């Protein structure tokens, strides 16, 4: 069964066509990568899925529910989470708070219970803290729980971003260039991490990435976009052989 179906997604930025007729169907548990040159409209696709931009036309169907037009937070609570190309942690807040904020929607006490400190509040807070610490443990960050997140080293910030996205309890995870700025050793570690969380949280993952090592290593299916248009689609091996892709994207590397 398809988890998400995107059909004919098109978006214009005042006269400039950023995404044209984008189609994608994701099966449960798949790991699909979107690749393409800079400015090809990849991040825009993520922004359209998560409701940051409203598409000019097209549908996004997630588990039988239409996402277009919903406010961002509702899209997230229906089971989609994302990370950012440029890390966007809540820099001045602690690691634990970063994780707890991402559980905003799952908290079930009313504001009144909170400001009067009624019993329901304490119980629920305890639960959130527990869940957050578990998550931090998985990402090997539990010792840093009270560190202000801007003080974390780069690699840990990247990990925290993924952990924070998972705290929203998603079914589909959108990763926007998770390996950006990483050295080869960190990249290897990231690949393991993605494989691991995918299994442990039964995630479907949609990935934007430039590092071919990551894409070819873990993606089951690849979609190549350029100028907002899909120019190829297939398994990593098919993509590597596709002449149009070589021309548009891998060209220089292949010709060497």
């Amino acid at each position, binding site marked *: 069964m398809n988890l998400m179906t995107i059909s004919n997604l098109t978006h214009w*930025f005042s006269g400039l066509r950023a995404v044209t007729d984008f189609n994608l169907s994701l099966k449960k548990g798949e790991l699909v990568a979107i690749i393409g040159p800079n400015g090809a409209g990849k*991040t825009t696709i993520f*922004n359209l899925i998560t409701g*940051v931009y409203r598409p000019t036309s097209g549908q996004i169907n997630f588990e039988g529910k239409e996402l277009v037009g919903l406010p961002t937070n509702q899209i997230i609570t229906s089971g989609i989470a994302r990370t*950012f190309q440029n890390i966007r942690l809540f820099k001045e807040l602690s690691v634990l708070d970063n994780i707890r904020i991402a559980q905003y929607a799952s908290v079930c006490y009313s504001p009144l219970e909170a400001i009067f400190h009624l019993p329901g509040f304490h119980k629920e807070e305890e639960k959130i803290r527990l869940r957050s610490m578990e998550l931090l443990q998985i990402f090997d960050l539990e010792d840093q729980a009270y560190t202000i997140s801007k003080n974390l080293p780069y690699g840990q910030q990247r990990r925290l971003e993924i952990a924070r996205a998972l705290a929203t309890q998603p079914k589909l995870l959108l990763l926007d260039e998770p390996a950006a700025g990483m050295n080869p050793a960190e990249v290897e570690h990231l690949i393991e991490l993605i494989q691991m969380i995918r299994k442990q949280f039964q995630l479907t993952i949609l990935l934007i990435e430039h590092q071919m090592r990551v894409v070819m290593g873990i993606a089951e299916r690849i979609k190549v976009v350029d100028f907002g248009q899909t120019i190829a689609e297939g398994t990593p091996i098919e993509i590597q052989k596709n002449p149009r892709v070589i021309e548009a994207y891998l060209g220089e590397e292949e010709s060497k």
Partner: protein
Amino acid sequence: MQYYVQQILNALQVGSVYALIALGYTMVYGILTLINFAHGDIFMVSTYIAFFVSTLLLGLTHHLPPLFTFVATLLAAMAGTSLVAVLIERLAYKPLRTAPRISCVITALGVGLLLENFMVAFKPIGPDSRIIPALFESRNYSIAGVTFSTLQIMIILISGIAMVLLDLVVRKTMIGMAMRAISWDKFTVPLMGISVDTIISITFILGASVAAIGGTLYGMAYSIDPYMGIRIGWWAFISAVVGGIGNIRGAMLGGYILGFIEIFTPVFLPTSTYRDFVAFSLLLVLLIFKPTGILGKPAVQKV
């Protein structure tokens, strides 16, 4: 009918002044995305400069030609006000250019109140209202029952010319182009060999000069006092927001709209004390339906 024509003329007169001040708000916002809350009080300062210069000139033993005194007063007010505005920018806003925007807005609010309260506390000025002496003889004309004075026509005409000139400067000159470039991207512009500081100063000078024109004309027609920065300034500010803050033609349009509201509120409502209520309510309603103002464009957020 005559009554309405008369009121329209009055509305144009008041609206011109609002439009002139609104331009200053909108230009600074356009380039720095800063609501320069002090601008109303800069306008107030300009009226005092005009007051002192004109008193000085008229007090001379030689009688100067009226046109000369008028132009001299106007130029002196423009120069003095520009100096004040640039000083404020350099001392209060520039240190905050990299700070969160909110700090800058609060500083602007502080500067405005400082100017106002300083003028009240400062003995030679004080809280009393004054009138700028008549710089030229203003005659009243009457055509078909509609009365208008030389001064009134001067206000409407001079404001109109100033606005057209300013619009040309922003649209056609290199300075205007640089201003628009900075409002797009503050970080790339210096790479093109343009000094951001200079352009920002020029923006403040232009805004202040236009406000000074408004201030001098206003002071000749009505009385001036240190609180007018708030009374007139807030109205001009609403004009800028109603027209679409950051948009020059929007500010002009907004100014005239507010002028009409001011004049026509007492026509349709029992007293003129409802003016603030009507103007600010209009602002609220407009913001609900068109948050960017009449001519403003929505900003696109980047993720």
